[in-house]
């Protein structure tokens, strides 16, 4: 019987590649840790959800150059403002830190400045988001608790379904993915908002699913294993056996996420981009992080 296959029967020596890949993984983890430190210090591109501040999405009927919008805001007294233009439309995203504008709200002040200094351009506020500093603090705490709890839930489940070694390996791999994603986002200076946290948790779940598939096969083959010396071979075979499945599922998930990246619009862009990167990292880690860890642990112990 003939099948359509993206990978023929493979015999890749994944365990042999492990040290090279560990270097890459270590780099990703370090980048993530660095990113985490920067986030804690407030030096990353955090959304107003966390820092407090005001976000506005505005639209003009007629084209307005970003420079004249910026100078209008600055001369109106709004100096610390980030302006982002949506390509192809006359839409802009404005982001300001918490500031004291007296009794007048920041969003009102901004819109009155714009309508006064850029008249006749069909200015319109599509949406706004004002967050006080206390809200951001609670949210940060919740985000950290949520991530910690999911990781804990995952270890417990995997440790129960497999055994402790598998549980720890899966968790390290998941942790690796979360950190890698954080690091890449930090490096690319993409905005981290609540949706990003959601993406982190989703990826934690997804990456685990992937790891579980590989682990299931390793466990199945380990049961048939004759001597411990064969472990490397067994793990290699297991990964090769599920490789096409791993690649196909990642591909289907990546296809739909790509649709979201392209068509989802500004609100979902960072979120879907995070998912896109996360799925790739998750697939990588189940092969090159989780599985070699089992090998290392079992052959040393």
């Amino acid at each position, binding site marked *: *019987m003939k*099948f*359509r296959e*993206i990978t023929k029967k493979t015999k890749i020596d994944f365990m042999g590649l492990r040290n090279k890949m560990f270097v890459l993984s270590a780099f990703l983890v370090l980048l993530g840790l660095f990113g985490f430190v920067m986030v804690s210090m407030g030096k990353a591109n955090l959304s107003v959800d966390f820092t407090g501040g005001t976000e506005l999405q505005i639209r003009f009927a007629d084209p307005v150059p970003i420079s004249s919008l910026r100078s209008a805001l600055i001369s109106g007294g709004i100096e610390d403002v980030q302006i982002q233009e949506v390509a192809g439309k006359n839409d802009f995203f404005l982001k300001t830190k918490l500031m004291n504008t007296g009794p007048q*709200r920041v*969003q009102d002040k901004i819109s009155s400045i714009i309508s006064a200094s850029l008249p006749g351009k069909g200015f*319109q*506020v*599509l*949406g*706004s*988001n*004002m*967050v*006080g500093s*206390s*809200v951001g603090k609670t949210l940060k705490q919740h*985000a950290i*608790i*949520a991530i910690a709890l*999911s990781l804990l*839930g*995952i270890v417990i*489940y*995997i440790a129960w379904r497999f055994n402790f070694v598998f549980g720890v390996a899966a968790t390290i791999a998941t942790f690796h993915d979360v950190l890698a994603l954080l690091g890449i986002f930090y490096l690319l200076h993409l905005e981290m908002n*609540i*949706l990003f946290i*959601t993406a982190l*948790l*989703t990826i*934690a*779940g*997804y990456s*685990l*699913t992937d790891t*579980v*598939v590989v682990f299931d096969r390793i466990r199945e083959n380990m049961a048939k294993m004759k001597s411990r010396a064969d472990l490397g071979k067994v793990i290699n075979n297991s990964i090769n056996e*599920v490789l*096409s*499945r791993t690649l*196909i*599922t990642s*591909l*289907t*998930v990546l*296809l*739909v*996420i*790509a*649709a*979201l990246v*392209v*068509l*989802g*619009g500004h*609100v*979902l862009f960072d*979120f*879907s981009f995070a*998912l896109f990167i996360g799925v790739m990292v998750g697939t990588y880690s189940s092969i090159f992080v989780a599985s070699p860890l089992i090998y290392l642990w079992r052959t040393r112990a």
Partner: protein
Amino acid sequence: MLKSLKLRAILIFVFLFISIIYLVPNIIELEGAWKKYFPSDKIHLGLDLKGGMHLLLALDTKKLMDNMLDRKFNQLKDGMIREGIRFVGLDKSSDSISVVVKADQREKFYNLLGKELPDMKVGASRNEGDSVALDLTYSEKEIANLKDNAIHQALETIRNRIDQFGVSEPVIVQQGESNILVQLPGVKDPERALELIGKTAQLEFKLVDEENAAKAGSGTIPEGDEQLMLKSRNRDTAVTMTTPILLKKQGLLTGDMLTDARVRIGGEFHNEPYVALEFNSEGSRIFDRITGENVGKRIAIVLDNTVYSAPVVRERISGGKASITGGFTPDEAKDLAIVLRAGALPAPVTVIQNITIGPTLGEDSIRKGVQAAVLGGLMVIVFMIFYYRASGIVADIALFLNLIYLLGAFTALKATMTLPGIAGIILTIGMGVDTNVLIFERIREELRLGKTVRAAVDGGYSKAWVTIFDAHITTLITTCILFMFGTGPIKGFAVTLAIGIIINLFTAVFGSKTIFDWILVKYKPRSLSI
């Protein structure tokens, strides 16, 4: 798993039928008799899709305790004077009242406390010569109680205001200890709504201190007085001006004694809208007394520490009627009447989060979400057929079932669809076929081993099952945590993903296996297109 093919098929169709029933109101507008046979709920859209306002308000509990203590302080002072208790000192700090009474007055003082302020407890007491110094504070329990009452009162007040303002399906709930979450879907004028909700609406009548007005001009404010701003609008230029005005701090009458507040137009007020007030019997009596005592003087009408007008009392006013003027626009007058009728907030609130989404943005988001879903779905469907050929069609049917069930369940559960929720559906499409990929790869392995089609299909399903189950559970763990910690939009994501995953376990395993079995029984194929 059910053995009988027929029973399994019936189950799938029953679920399909129920889901479609629930989906009908989303697709066509039902009329007349049809309405009886179909559920009436459509998929509930979140604020990010529908447009509207999401507010998180923090009740100023510090100010609340301050107000409460203020009231107690005055009550205690009046009580001691009335009962003839000699006291040497009486003072108030941020969280306690300190009193120094003569030692022989101690018993009388305790009696007064028990009678008038049973909710306060005596903290430290020190002897100072022939006097005793006492600190009065609220007990922890009492503080919690007061805060709890205040937040409930605030919720009730805000609910009243919004009801009278007229917003359909508002959400007004307590969040955390002292926060209030308000969601106003589809609100047309968010600024006006915010103004209406956020106003403390503390109405007070206070006497203008004209004797000392000159002194205040030079910067010193006499004991027992306060200086507030008088707001006035020039009727011709519509420019609002504020001028300082000196008032006696002690209020004469407050807004809790109002029974009604209505907008009126005309009369002596130059055809301008003004708010007519009506007091209850106690309020009327007090108003009657204070106007009688102060003929020829000015009484200021103070709302949230701004003076709206300070008319001269020409004669005693009986009957409990008063009015507030201040050059209002009709909308301003209407909103003021609403907040006065609904009552004051127990303490000021601050807006700590305000998400406003215009209707354009919501429509935009829906369109983009649906486009992404259609494109993503199509790519997956095409890919599955390309890669697994006829079996890919089986997976696609399972996927289709999943989507119909998901949307049906979503409507039936009255869950709220948000933009991340749409992303959750799209992700479900991607993850849903994951299950079938796992099964198909297993079946291929079995076929490679030379098994018959029947044995390969059965083997593939049973061997993949454990893995599939584990994979679904791990994703469910994270979605549950997301649901626990997430706010509105994130909850929408968690709900769709969770429902999608649970349904997927049914459609991708049970559903697709049923289709396979049906094909195997009916056509008994020698080979499998997979």
